[in-house]
């Protein structure tokens, strides 16, 4: 078995009933899972040590995802911890081993898709990820009207939504964060319309319900799926972790898969 890598990036999905948990809940579920797996995760210093984990942009409670990421840091000398629990038959690399160990402790709906070793040059997920792909199934409006509203929105350079910040109402312009927006006919859930969008995380992340409010306040989200998270290098979008590790690969269009 290979030496245990110091830092790993894991990609996982969050689908089905587990989507009703919040980002904080997910952090706790993963922390408990890591303790059950006995993987030697590094701990923070101080009065109440926490495992050193870093998540990507928070997924809104109720939304599903095909591409969530988490960075793990292993304790120095963690190799001994692995050796005690490793399956000598497996003969696979450390990243795959960790992925399997974590998967075995995850609740239904969480699927560990891939894992790759971090070199340390990547920066944090929060810095690295610049855009997310979304598939939204909505109700509240007929197909024709929705197409028209989407078209109108794209023609404007201001899309204002109200939001409360520190107890004060403020208006935010979402338009700079809306990279692409399409109405794609009916959704897989009966009675819904399907919207696909690429939303930039800069200057600020736009939540799906905010986008819908920006299109038309009568829209209601029935099902929302984050289908991808990407970084941008020289104008091209890349997944922060390809199935082959951290080899950069052009982004592929991932559709919302039916359940």
């Amino acid at each position, binding site marked *: 078995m290979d030496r245990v890598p110091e830092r790993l990036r894991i990609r996982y999905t969050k689908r089905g*009933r*587990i989507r*009703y*948990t*919040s980002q*904080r*809940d997910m952090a*706790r*579920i993963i*922390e*408990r*899972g*890591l*303790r*059950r797996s*006995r993987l030697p995760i590094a*701990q923070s210093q101080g*009065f*109440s*040590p926490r495992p050193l984990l870093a998540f990507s942009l928070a997924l809104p*409670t*109720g939304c599903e995802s095909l591409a969530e990421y988490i960075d793990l840091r292993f304790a120095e000398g963690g190799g001994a911890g692995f050796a005690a629990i490793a399956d000598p038959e497996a003969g696979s690399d450390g990243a795959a081993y960790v992925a399997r160990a974590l998967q075995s*402790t995850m*609740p*239904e*709906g969480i699927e560990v898709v891939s894992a790759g070793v971090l070199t340390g040059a990547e920066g944090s997920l929060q810095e690295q990820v610049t855009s997310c792909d979304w598939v939204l199934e909505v109700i509240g409006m007929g197909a024709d009207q929705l197409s028209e509203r989407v078209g109108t929105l794209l023609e404007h350079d201001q899309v204002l939504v109200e939001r409360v910040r520190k107890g004060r109402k403020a208006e935010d312009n979402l338009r700079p964060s809306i990279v692409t927006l399409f109405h794609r006919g009916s959704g897989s859930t009966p009675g819904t319309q399907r919207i696909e969008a690429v939303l930039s995380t800069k200057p600020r992340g736009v939540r799906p319900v905010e986008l819908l409010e920006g299109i038309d306040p009568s829209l*209601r*989200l*029935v099902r929302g799926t984050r289908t991808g998270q990407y970084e941008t290098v020289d104008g091209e979008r890349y997944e922060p972790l390809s199935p082959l590790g951290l080899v950069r690969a052009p982004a592929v269009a991932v559709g919302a898969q039916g359940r």
Partner: protein
Amino acid sequence: MTSVFEQLEPLLFSVEKPARYVGGELGSQEPEHGPGIVSWLLAYPDTYEIGLPNQGLQILYEILNERSDAAAERTYAPWHDLEKLMRDEGIPLFSVESHKPAHEFHVIAFNLSAELTYTNLLNMVDLAGIAVRTEDRGPNDAVIIAGGHCTYNPEPLGDFLDAAVLGDGEEVVSEINEAVAAWLALEEPQRSRRALHRLLSDVEGVYVPSLYQPVYEGPIQIGLERVADWVPDRIEKRSVMDLGEWPYPKQQLVPLIEVVHDRLNVEVFRGCTRGCRFCQAGMITRPVRERPAEQVIEMVQRGIERTGYDEVALTSLSTADFSGIESVVAAVVDNECNAGRVSVSLPSLRVDAFTVGTAAKIQQVKRTGLTFAPEGGTWRMRRVINKLITDDDLYAAVDAAFSQGWRRVKLYFLIGLPSERDEDVLGIAELGRRCVEIGRKYHQTVTVTASVGGFVPKPQTPFQWHAQDSGEELQRKISMLRAKAHETRGLTIRWHEPRASVAEALMSRGDRRMGAVIEDVWRQGGIFQEWGEFFDLGRFEAAMDRAGLKVEDVTTRQRSVDEVLPWDHLSAGLHKDFLVAEYQDALGELGVEDCRWTPCYDCGACTSLGLEHHVASTVPPAGGSQGTGQGIDLSVPVSVGAKPN
């Protein structure tokens, strides 16, 4: 089998904490339902976060699902937002596992741990589409039963429950399963409600209110008539004598969202014989029955590996008294697998320096706050309630806590106790002041919080006859105490809403006529009354009025010891003589020792179980038996000792 999930799913985007309603916990089961299987819906009448950790329900969940002729799922009270949507859309109460409608279960079994949840019970039965009153239910309606500490006076819910169960549920739950199976096997018209009630009343420990008719004279209940000769005239509680035979829960539920007591819980003993006279839990759960230390260690270790929790609570009414406490703590703390990351918590700390030492040993990392419960502000008051902690015991414990790194100490007190004088209430501020002073020896800033609750004289305790302080009197005492405590920087007073203590007294001390009041409060929208922002005593007062009843008759009226009490026919094993003698000794400021380490004073708990004096462990707990009256210099003006009875 039907599921409401498809109807429910679109609503979940618009409610708070939707994960409350989707199940999926580690340890959750989806048992098969079908012919020959009695299906149970185990219900907690408050939110998911409060109800999920309930150990009683989790134990029954596993025991039932291990049976081939039973299947159990769970439900909790939906929060206001979802309830409104459910009523709008016609979605009935459902189980969190398979989302089966509640009315498709044979039995809906509630845990009752707090009186102010009673209106939620009615709301949940109604939301299930089932008639709330027993008399309106037919042969195809679910059996509505309840267990838990509140059922030692189930009369206020007597109109709504098919049956109330007294005591430990481990064994009786299977007997109830068989009784319900026998009833379900009957053909109509034999399968009547009365037939159900007769079958249930044959099970020891099960009380069927509809078989009894209370007789009143003005505000007082003067008797109880049985509807037939075969109806038992007295119901004895059930007790499991060997906890070692019941290592449950084996698969504690690990929820997806944060809940109260979110940690591994392992029960180390049941019962308590310290004899605090205000404490209903201590009176109704006698005698003390310990779990073998080796089993505790195994349950802790297995539980940690299975759940991934990094905290385990060793639960009981007074964990420091567990005879195996040192070996268990050592085993958990020293286990290499836990890598020094598992913390042990003792939810009920004894007030002495030794216990603090134990707490220090196991809380190497987080030393945030420690909690003690002296309960009474003066030594006189504590003699009355038989919580025999001297001022010096408390100061030594607090000194130990501050000297070993803690900076926050919380003290629990009751006010409105029998024979209480203003000086006893002000004594709380004085104890607090001294504790702050002790803390300042070690730290620049310390916080001492005195948390004050209004005393509710509970059924089946020596104070069951005692007049409760009125809400106004409790409020006066709180104000007086706050003014006094204000003089000490670093001392904070927190208090329980006195009006809630009044409502609790109505629900816990009332007779069956409270049923109309509970139903009225519920119909006026009074649910989630445990939640301060929704509690409204006005609703209870108006409902009492409409029912032609007076609040004072239930709360502040002194009852004589020969008065019929609404719960007289329900037995926690205690002799009435014992309770009377304890009440008189309390007023005479006379303490009584813990019978684990002193001769029996015949409270009745053991003999009613057909046992001689049952001693869980003859070994006094590590560090001595502080607070139980042992080793107290008898030259202090109090006489302590085993009573000749």
